[in-house]
């Protein structure tokens, strides 16, 4: 059955400029990157995930069926809950960590010292649990996209949009808790600007809040998706040239890009957490 899949891929690449545009030639790449309602375990068939009818809330159709990315997000959450609570409980027995607690402690201390304490200061420790959750969730979601049969949940605009939305809410709440509702929005405009330029500054800074959240979304989404597209394109080159001699070069490059993607997974998780901490620090220390 997977042999027929391979033949189908080769067939769709035979006519790259078909009259319908490129839906045929890049179909298989889109299929691997975007969300789907089945989990494909290629030589062994596929699993169809349970689908629910859409719920109508005030005229908006909400579709809560389980898709591939939702399934992988749940998988990541379950692994995080189990592993991290076992690690936390192991600290009751001894202060010295054993086993996987060593690795977790490296990351936790790194986030606490280099990201939260150095950027926000002691007040940031109130929000340390959010930053730790964010970092581990994004890291594990990114890494799951690189294992066989895995899918990148953070390669979905809705997932990264949701994470950026949560960070946006945290930034507002941290600022409002520190300066009060009116004081926070008045403090958006820096001190010492002339009176006629202050309204413009206010509009610019206010839109800047949304622009920061939007940038967080697109940065994580594009980094994850671009890496996968490069890997898939390199492997697709074998079918474009229709010769097996291209395979060693193609596979070597694809392995290199895969290793680079592991680095990018760590860096992107770090950047998302660091930028959220930076914005929270900016909104707390407004003067």
């Amino acid at each position, binding site marked *: 059955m997977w042999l027929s899949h391979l033949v189908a891929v080769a067939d769709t690449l035979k006519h790259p*400029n078909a009259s319908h*545009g*490129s839906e045929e030639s*890049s179909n298989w790449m*889109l299929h691997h990157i975007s969300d789907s309602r089945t989990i494909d375990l290629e030589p062994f068939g596929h699993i169809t995930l349970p689908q629910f009818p859409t719920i109508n809330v005030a005229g908006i159709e909400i579709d809560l069926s389980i898709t591939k990315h939702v399934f992988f997000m749940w998988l990541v959450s379950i692994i995080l809950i189990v592993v991290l609570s076992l690690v936390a409980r192991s600290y009751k027995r001894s202060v010295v960590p054993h086993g996987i607690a060593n690795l977790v402690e490296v990351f936790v201390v790194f986030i606490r010292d*280099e990201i939260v304490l150095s950027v926000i200061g002691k007040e940031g420790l109130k929000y340390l649990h959010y930053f730790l959750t964010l970092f581990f969730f994004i890291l594990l979601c990114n890494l799951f996209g690189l294992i066989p049969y895995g899918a990148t949940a953070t390669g979905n605009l809705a997932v990264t949009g949701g994470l950026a939305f949560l960070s946006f809410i945290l930034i507002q709440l941290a600022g409002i808790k520190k300066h009060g509702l009116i004081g926070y929005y008045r403090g958006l405009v820096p001190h010492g600007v002339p009176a006629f330029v202050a309204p413009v500054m206010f509009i610019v800074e206010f839109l800047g809040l949304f622009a920061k959240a939007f*940038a967080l979304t*697109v*940065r994580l*989404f*594009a*980094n994850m*998706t*671009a890496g996968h*597209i490069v890997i898939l394109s390199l492997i697709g080159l074998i079918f474009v040239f229709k010769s097996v001699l291209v395979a060693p070069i193609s596979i070597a490059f694809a392995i290199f890009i895969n290793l680079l993607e592991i680095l990018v997974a760590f*860096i*992107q998780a*770090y*950047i998302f957490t*660091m*930028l959220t901490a930076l914005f929270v620090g900016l909104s707390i220390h407004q003067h």
Partner: protein
Amino acid sequence: MPELAHLAGGFGAALSVIGAAYGISKLAAATMEASGRQPEVAGEVRTSMIISAALIEGVTLFAEVICIILALK
């Protein structure tokens, strides 16, 4: 005309990569110069370099996403 969209997608991707590569290479050059001049601050400089590189790359990837949408038309 989907052919024009494909062409535009290719050009857009290449141009945005030129800008990003130029910016990040200037970053890396400054970092290496600073680390060579004062090895004690090499760690902090490297952290700031990674953050700035990720921000520049974020802007580049906006353009890349638009080019992908064009190339898939």
